[in-house]
């Protein structure tokens, strides 16, 4: 594995990347806030994992590379060919790009048999060549016995294999997969990925594999690109990228008033949580890629913290902290309180609530913080 890794590294430093994407695309939909995709990527041959939460712009990026969506600016180069250049007005239609794209829904043609689906992209070839290629790819993805069936007559895993075969039989220059293995069990998934890797040892094309699952990144990753809010926020090995899933800039710009440093006490993986010590208090936060003893930062919005004057009981929230109000400050319709619970937290309540609870500087209060309101950010 190490040898393969260093081999890939050498290749990319010598040759130009087979896929180079530098684009900007603004999306304005009536029902969503405006979204800007702005990325610069050089993708070498091999498996590249594109990782990010839903809405990060992963599918938009793939649509742009495929030619289904036209970027506003930038350029896309596949091998030696410029397939998009905003300045020179070049936009090669998707059918002429030789880029394979497997959609999340797979998009197998429901009215065609498995074999006819696989033959679909080969219309430009002589009949004998078509049959030969189709037979070979169906065999290498182990679906040859399904050739006469329709998509509705085969299982989910088989459909995914057929979709891969249909895309790869065209001998594309780039392969893009948009969460194609979603909903498959781990064993089936790794079997399909093994077949894909085997196929690509001969072809050596860049594969862009989209996922929002950390497990998949861990299982597949050689090279991971993390995308968030339309930007590449990290690139590297799975460990590197997953350790820093969100950046401090992101946390601050998104309005996290509380940004607290602490150390991981322990991980409770079965519950998907870990405990973090902040000065003299402890918080339960969602599981991150960290080990016990690691330094982390926890971001919490002031408005996500509940405040009580008596100790509440029977709560689903996992964090209940006792503290004293250090300061109170009116800011328009809200009152911002600073509460010392060992670490100092900023809390926001409405004026009415502050009045009713008779909040004073020095009074003892309880803070209630849901685990899911705690966000890990890059140290």
């Amino acid at each position, binding site marked *: 594995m190490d040898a393969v890794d260093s081999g890939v590294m050498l290749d990319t430093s010598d040759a130009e990347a087979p896929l180079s994407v530098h684009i900007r695309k603004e999306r304005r939909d009536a029902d969503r806030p405006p979204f800007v995709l702005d990325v610069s990527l050089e993708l070498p041959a091999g498996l590249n994992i594109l990782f990010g939460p839903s809405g990060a712009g992963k599918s938009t990026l793939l649509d742009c590379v495929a030619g289904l969506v036209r970027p506003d600016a930038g350029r896309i180069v596949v091998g030696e060919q410029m397939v998009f250049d905003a300045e020179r007005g070049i936009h090669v239609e*998707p*059918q002429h790009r030789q880029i394979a*794209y497997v959609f999340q829904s797979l998009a197998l043609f429901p009215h*065609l048999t498995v074999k006819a689906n696989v033959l*679909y992209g080969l*219309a430009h070839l002589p009949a004998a060549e078509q049959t030969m290629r189709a037979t070979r790819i169906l065999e290498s993805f182990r679906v040859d016995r399904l050739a006469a069936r329709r998509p509705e007559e085969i299982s989910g895993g088989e459909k995914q294999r057929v979709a891969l075969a249909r895309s790869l039989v*065209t001998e594309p220059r780039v392969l893009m997969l948009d969460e194609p293995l979603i909903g498959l069990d781990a064993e089936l998934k790794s079997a399909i990925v093994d077949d894909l890797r085997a196929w690509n040892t001969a072809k050596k094309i860049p594969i862009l594999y989209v996922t929002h699952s950390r497990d998949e990144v861990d299982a597949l990753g050689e090279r991971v690109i993390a995308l968030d809010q339309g930007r590449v926020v990290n690139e590297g090995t799975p460990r590197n990228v997953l350790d820093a899933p969100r950046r401090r800039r992101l946390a601050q710009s998104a309005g996290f008033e509380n940004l607290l440093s602490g150390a991981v006490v322990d991980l409770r993986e079965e519950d998907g949580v870990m405990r973090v010590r902040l000065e003299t208090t402890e918080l339960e936060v969602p599981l991150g890629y960290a080990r016990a003893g690691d330094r982390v930062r926890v971001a919490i919005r002031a408005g996500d913290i509940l405040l009580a004057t008596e100790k509440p009981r029977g709560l689903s929230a996992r964090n209940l902290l006792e503290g004293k109000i250090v300061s109170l400050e009116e800011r328009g319709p809200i009152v911002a309180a600073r509460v010392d619970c060992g670490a100092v937290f900023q809390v926001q309540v409405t004026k009415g609530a502050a009045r009713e609870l008779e909040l004073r500087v020095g009074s003892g209060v309880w803070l209630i913080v849901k685990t899911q309101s705690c966000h890990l950010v890059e140290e």
Partner: protein
Amino acid sequence: MEAMWLSVKLAGCVAAILLVLGMPLAYWLAYTKWRWKFLLEVIVALPLVLPPTVLGFYALVAMGSRGPLGRLWTALFGHSLAFTFSGLVLASVLYSLPFAVQPLIASFESVDGKLLAASAVLGAGKWRTFWRVILPLSMPGVLTAVVLSFAHTMGEFGVVLMVGGNLAGVTRTVSIEIYDHVQSLEYGAANGLALALLVISFVVLALVYGINRRVRRRTWMPWTAE
């Protein structure tokens, strides 16, 4: 019997013409992002709400010897368009337009956009995508369009009367003949023809609904490629 044959001939011509004209029109309406396309949709839908006499009246004016269409037709073929079978076909095509175009639009639109994207990524241009993906998956809509435009033309009355008049063997269709019989109090003859129309309409619609039902259950897809 002559009238029945004429009605079937008229309806067949109209359905065939509408299939050929309706497909590109419906394709364009289904996929264009042109902001004014709704105006064209309104025009296509107009015959649904317009009294047939209004449509027939304007068709007659256009086809008349002083109308633009009438003059063009006379220049090309040497005889006038109004009160001929060709004129009747033309007016009926307009009158049944929504019955062909709307089912086509609906079925084109219901084809999953990802399938079209997949087709493009696999190297197919728009033309190939239409014939290999959109059309096969729209067969129920195509069938509905053909049958509805046929049946609607079979039953039309107002437009035929306005544009075609009442010339035996040329423009006297079944519905006109039924009217004639009733006018001359021949209820028996009227009933015979009316019953025939009723039965034909029922059988044709039953066929369409039955076939579309089976297609939805995917037990019968004669147009499926290997």
